[in-house]
């Protein structure tokens, strides 16, 4: 596993930018509503995440933190 991300689901507004632009398609939109009333995105850790941070670059809400490198 090269990388992983953490999504702050209370910040997430379900715009699905991260989902669209994740080259590894490791993020999905859930049917979970957060307190703001948005269906939130969730990281599905399928070991493919490269930590490229494209999701974070796209995320309007600064809801994503990205980790990369040697085994955690």
């Amino acid at each position, binding site marked *: 596993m090269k990388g992983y991300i953490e999504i702050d689901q209370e910040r997430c*507004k379900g715009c699905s930018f991260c989902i669209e632009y994740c080259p590894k398609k490791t993020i999905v939109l859930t049917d979970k*509503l957060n*307190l*703001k*009333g*948005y269906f939130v995105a969730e990281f599905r850790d399928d070991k493919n995440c490269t930590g490229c941070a494209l999701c974070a670059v796209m995320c309007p809400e600064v809801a994503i933190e990205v980790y990369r490198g040697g085994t955690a």
Partner: protein
Amino acid sequence: MLIKTIFSGFGGQGVLSMGYTLATAAMLEGKHVTYFPSYGVEVRGGTANCTVAVADEEIASPVASEPEFIVAMNQPSFARFQSILQAGGLILVNSSIVDISAARGDIEIVAVPTSELAEELGTIKVANMIMLGAFIKASSIISYDFMIKNLLQILGEGKSK
């Protein structure tokens, strides 16, 4: 008779058209009525609400400080508005997504699983109308039959908004 109802929920849940439809129906029934939406950036946040007042005489203020009825389509709305409901007032909640465990003791609560019901009807879009129907039955602010009889005209009016 003067009855005020607050419809509240997320932006997407059609709470404004719930209120607008009730107001239209009440107007067609010949009642005095005011409809006052939350407006401007408030809405941007993602929550919306509107207040409908129905009465037999002139309505002094379209604002409800102590409403008789509340329709809460989501958790934040339930939290925010149940507190201002009159003692003995009635609150309808969208039980599909609202946890009512923290409810006040001195109010009446009707739980409506709108999502489930809507899915039965095949589309989540009508969840708000299902809630409205439930509300009118429970509140009988206007006659349910009149509502049904004039549904087309009422919704027609709705469009011409």
